[in-house]
């Protein structure tokens, strides 16, 4: 417990906003109108009188609104990006007003498949509409409007959070000054869709899944845990797994010659899978991973550079050398499109062995880049 830490935002609380009340529902990309929608969100720091210091943090697949600080004095670990958010950190709460919300479709306070459908009084389950990255961003826009912010100083996120950053600057070019998409892509590769599909199949083949109608019954633990195990493999690199586990055995000196855990890497994955099940909803996993698959920023425009034609934001794009899930060439394609339309963009590939997970781990390099980018980028007229 480190809430006494000078670099921590301390005790925080999750707030929520409900909007799109019928009949004023939000039109989703799939064509359905949907409402009411609740977004869970947290804020850290103070909004300036000119409302020009707001930074929107966008989370990845399994993230939530709790990006920094602690919910109470007993919470063991802080928010998911605490190392980057707080007094004196990259997203310095003495200077900036930080907002992070849970995506629509999620299971951490925002409306998702596990939420109660007010019309039936039961969880939506698979009657929840298919949501997309665009829908997530449109919902966040309602939150930003509610907070009275015309223009975000910055939108930032890694992985699926980076997809939302890209969608923000394309959909609302007047409303974002600085964009920091990290370890992300304008569209998933076939390989990444393939891994997502195996994860979904794992959930759907669990007998407890029951076409998503498992609320109030035993949940599809095995299916979701295996989906998470597969995910974890894709977040690491061959080298980082080798360094972390090698062929070391777990609590034994010799092979067991059975199917219990022998290797440390098996034990690690099982632990990661099992602990994920306690904090995440299987249907949310299906919906959100599908939203990532559908994301293709260029598709409505024909070419990626046309998507960026009206973009006003300055970009800081970052990829990691060992990330094979969102490889550097995908970030370079975005830089390329920026160059072609004359948008200002910094691109750097950080040398790292951590794979895709590097966006949560290479904090020293990220802190230096982001601190300078925000300092210079927040100067001058918006």
């Amino acid at each position: 417990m480190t809430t006494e830490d000078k670099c921590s935002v301390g005790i925080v609380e999750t707030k929520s906003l409900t909007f799109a009340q019928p009949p004023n529902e939000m039109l989703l990309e799939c064509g359905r109108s949907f409402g009411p929608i609740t977004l869970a969100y947290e804020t850290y720091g103070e909004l300036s009188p000119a409302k020009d210091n707001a930074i929107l943090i966008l989370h990845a697949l399994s993230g939530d609104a709790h990006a920094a600080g602690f919910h109470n004095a007993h919470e063991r670990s802080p928010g998911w990006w605490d190392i980057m958010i707080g007094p004196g950190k990259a997203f310095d709460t003495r200077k900036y007003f930080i907002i992070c919300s849970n995506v629509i479709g999620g299971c951490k306070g925002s409306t998702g498949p596990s939420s109660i459908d007010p019309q039936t009084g039961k969880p939506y389950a698979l009657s929840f509409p298919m949501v997309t990255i665009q829908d997530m961003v449109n919902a966040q826009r309602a939150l930003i409007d509610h907070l009275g912010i015309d223009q975000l100083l910055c939108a930032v996120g890694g992985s699926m959070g980076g997809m939302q950053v890209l969608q923000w600057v394309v959909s609302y070019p007047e409303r974002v000054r600085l964009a920091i998409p990290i370890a992300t892509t304008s569209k998933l590769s076939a390989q990444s869709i393939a891994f997502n599909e195996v994860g979904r199949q794992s959930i759907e083949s669990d007998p407890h899944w029951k076409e998503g109608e498992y609320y109030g019954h035993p949940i599809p633990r095995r299916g979701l845990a295996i989906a998470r195990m597969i995910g974890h493999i894709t977040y690491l690199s061959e080298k980082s797994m080798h360094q972390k586990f090698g062929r070391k055995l777990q609590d034994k000196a010799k092979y067991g010659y059975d199917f219990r855990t022998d290797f440390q890497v098996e034990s690690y994955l099982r632990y990661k899978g099992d602990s994920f099940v306690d904090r995440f909803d299987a249907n949310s996993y299906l919906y959100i991973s599908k939203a990532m698959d559908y994301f293709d920023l260029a598709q409505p425009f024909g070419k990626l550079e046309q998507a960026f034609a009206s973009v006003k934001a300055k970009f800081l794009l970052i990829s990691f050398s060992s990330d094979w899930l969102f490889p550097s060439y995908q970030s370079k394609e975005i830089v390329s499109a920026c160059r072609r339309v004359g948008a200002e963009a910094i691109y750097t590939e950080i040398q790292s062995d951590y794979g895709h997970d590097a966006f949560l781990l290479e904090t020293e390099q990220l802190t230096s880049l982001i601190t300078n980018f925000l300092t210079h980028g927040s100067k001058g007229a918006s």
Partner: protein
Amino acid sequence: MGDLGEPIRLNDTGTTVRLLPEHRVIMDLIAEGSRVLDLGCGEGDLLLALKIKKNVRAEGIELSEACIQACVAKGLFSVQHGDLDEGLANYPDKSIDDVILTNTIQVLHRPLFLIREMARVGKRCIVSFPNFAHWPVRWQLFAHGRMPKTGKLPSEWYETSNIHLTTIIDFRHFCQKAGIHILQEIPLRPSGPGQRSIVRFAPNLRADSAIFVLEAGPGMMSDSAATH
């Protein structure tokens, strides 16, 4: 290097940079408000000086992650981590006013490929390189039979990254071969600490480096279109 002059004060807020003498010559070649791409921009000193003094749209490509960090710290917003040997595919034809390549062509694997890329993308190209026909270089090889080491070429032969060294005369032939037209040659020699002056007489012998201002020749664009 060891060749940096006094810090140059760029504005009232005290921003200063230290520029190589050849960078100071290049500064004078750049038009106010133009779009400039510096290949191998290092820590971004030239780009920052051009941005503040000449109000250019300053863009850079750099191989070193640490240098990109330094550029971001200087407030440059268009620097990109990349390998020049991969070319300039991001840039449409004639999208840049001046493409700059200082003291770098000799480390590239494919100089001919890059110079053609520069001439495709840039309305003008500005290239500087150390002159391997400078008399102290010749002398070391001639009199001592040793691989030359000079201020411009400081490394041992087994450690140098210079794999494509050239001379002023060879560079002219190279431009001809590439279908590139030479607009201006500026041979330089040291004339005091951090200073360079223009060599008028016997440049290939007396200049330790040279700056060439280039543009695509009449035949080049159709040539490169055929090979792309």
